[in-house]
């Protein structure tokens, strides 16, 4: 009896070991916040937190797919800025035009990345670095280096500022739908499994007859599309198309994915843990703001950067201990 339990526990840990750390850290941080700060668990804080972080969750999940193939997408932040401008221009026609329009714009840039990586065989780091610069330039060009007003009269702002059933922000609801959809895609479709196989060994996957080129093209387009959606959230939740936004988003998305236990070399990782990673990193900001509000210490912006780095270090070390245990067994 006890033997089986111990065995099962070991199996369980081995299976979920690479993402156990992030869930534990997330739970701990939430608990810490709830106990230490009043209003931390209040409806206002929760919904505004989700509203702001919806953008990062969506981007991180897209990034997760790219990283699972062993690639990387540095362009997501610029793409979100670019598509926020597109969305703002389309906002007079309402959400039903602006949302698909901006997502298509993101997909198009994703397709460009896919072309560079898959057809031209340019390393993803470089290809997406170039589109990062290009999309930023493009955003500034089409906006004339100005923020672009959205149409406050249309239903466009409802998405970013309204709530579904007076409960959760629409952005959070859409994000949840996207996350669940992508989770199913990864776990239950051959496309998803091909994505995982590519990260585990691209040549091998190709020799198995999988359509690796197609799957790779897909992840870059997906990531572009997710960034496009984040751009829509940005425009509708923050009232304008913003060509200057998105700086450093790619790095926080990468951090979320990695904190979620996904291997940067690909092949191993999950959508759920990535969401947890994104929430965790967002929560650090939120908690720092609350800590400043307690008035005991006032952390300067610089200390906040140092603390964020230190926190990332902590989670990564925790993560690497856990995942090295699983890694060892595989090698």
């Amino acid at each position, binding site marked *: 009896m006890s033997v089986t339990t111990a065995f099962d526990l070991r199996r369980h840990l081995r299976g979920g070991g690479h993402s156990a750390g992030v869930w534990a850290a997330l739970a701990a941080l939430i608990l810490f916040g709830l106990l230490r700060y009043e209003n931390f668990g209040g409806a*206002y*804080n929760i919904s*505004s937190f989700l509203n702001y972080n919806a953008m990062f969750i969506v981007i991180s999940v897209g990034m997760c797919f790219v990283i699972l193939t062993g690639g990387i997408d540095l362009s997501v932040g610029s793409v979100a800025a670019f598509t926020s401008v597109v969305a703002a221009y389309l906002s007079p026609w309402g959400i039903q035009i602006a949302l698909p329009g901006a997502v298509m714009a993101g997909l198009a840039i994703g397709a460009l990345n896919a072309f560079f990586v898959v057809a031209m065989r340019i390393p993803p780091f470089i290809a997406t670095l170039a589109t990062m610069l290009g999309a930023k330039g493009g955003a500034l060009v089409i906006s004339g280096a*100005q923020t672009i007003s959205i149409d406050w009269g249309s239903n466009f702002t409802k998405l970013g500022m309204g709530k579904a059933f007076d409960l959760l922000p629409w952005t959070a609801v859409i994000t949840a739908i996207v996350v669940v959809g992508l989770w199913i895609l990864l776990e239950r479709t051959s496309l998803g499994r091909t994505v995982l196989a590519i990260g585990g060994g691209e040549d091998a996957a190709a020799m198995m007859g999988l359509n690796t080129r197609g799957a790779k093209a897909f992840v870059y387009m997906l990531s572009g599309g997710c960034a496009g959606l984040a751009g829509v959230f940005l425009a509708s939740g923050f009232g*304008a198309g913003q060509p200057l*936004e998105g700086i450093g988003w790619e790095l926080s998305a990468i951090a979320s994915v990695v904190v979620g236990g996904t291997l940067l070399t690909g092949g191993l990782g999950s959508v759920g843990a990535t969401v947890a990673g994104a929430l965790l990193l967002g929560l650090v900001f*939120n908690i720092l703001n609350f800590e400043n509000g307690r008035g005991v210490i006032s952390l300067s*912006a610089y200390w906040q950067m140092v603390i964020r780095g230190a926190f990332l270090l902590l989670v990564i070390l925790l993560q690497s201990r856990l995942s090295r245990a699983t890694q060892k067994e595989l090698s």
Partner: protein
Amino acid sequence: ETPPLEQKERYKVGFAQMESNNPWRIAETKSFHDTAESCNWDLIATDAAGSAAKQVADVDSMIAQGIDVLFLPPREEKPLIPAVMKAQAAGIPVFLVDRSVDPDVAKPGEHFVAFLGSDFIDQGERAADWLIENFEGDQGIIVELEGTTGSSPANDRKQGFDERIAQDDRFQIVASQTGDFARDLGRQVMETLLQAHPDVNVVYAHNDEMAIGAIQALELAGRKPGEDVTIVSIDGTRDALQAIIDGKMGVTVESSPFFGPLACEVMGKYAAGEEIPGWVQVEDRIFTADNAAEHIDEAY
């Protein structure tokens, strides 16, 4: 109507700074911290690290914490409107500091109490005016060093200056490139532009840091800033005043970061029920060789 502010002994005050990557912002934040003590504030200061979206999220977290008043230097004109609206909806009076929001959407006295600050366009115009008045040559070949591409001070300071200078046909702007409000970039851009346009004799920089960078570039190239090249700038930093005293720079239009005391005063009046004008305009001085030495000690 803006929400009223009750009169209290201590206030919980929110100050949502947009970024801390230049001396001007740092001086502004410091001014609020200094005022907090004298004005009996519990100050919650956040820093959005240059992201308008994060600035909105910061305001959100301050609303969640139940602040009494919000001072907000909006990073962008339009993207910060939601923050203003949300604070308004939560019954928190909002004062905009040093930059304003899009007047077509959010109005003083209605969505926010007032805007405390100067006018970037006006700053650009005054820099141009000084140049037009004091330039002695026949032909002014101008290089313009712009601030961060797309940022509102850069756009406005460019607009004010360019429009005014266009009215005088002695002047011609041969190149206008961004130096990102930074000294190092200002220097590099100036070095390059000087090669392409060796005949330049006026530099207009959107802030003092870039102006100092330009002075260094000129000196490295063997030019004499102040003598064969006139430098015009905005901000009024200590280094700039020193450069004016040294004769290397012509003028800098003040753009004071010390908003703390003014904020305290206006807030007190508002709590007392006084009428606050929609724009509490800050009187920007102008520093030239005539008065730089007097003011250098108060500069940051």
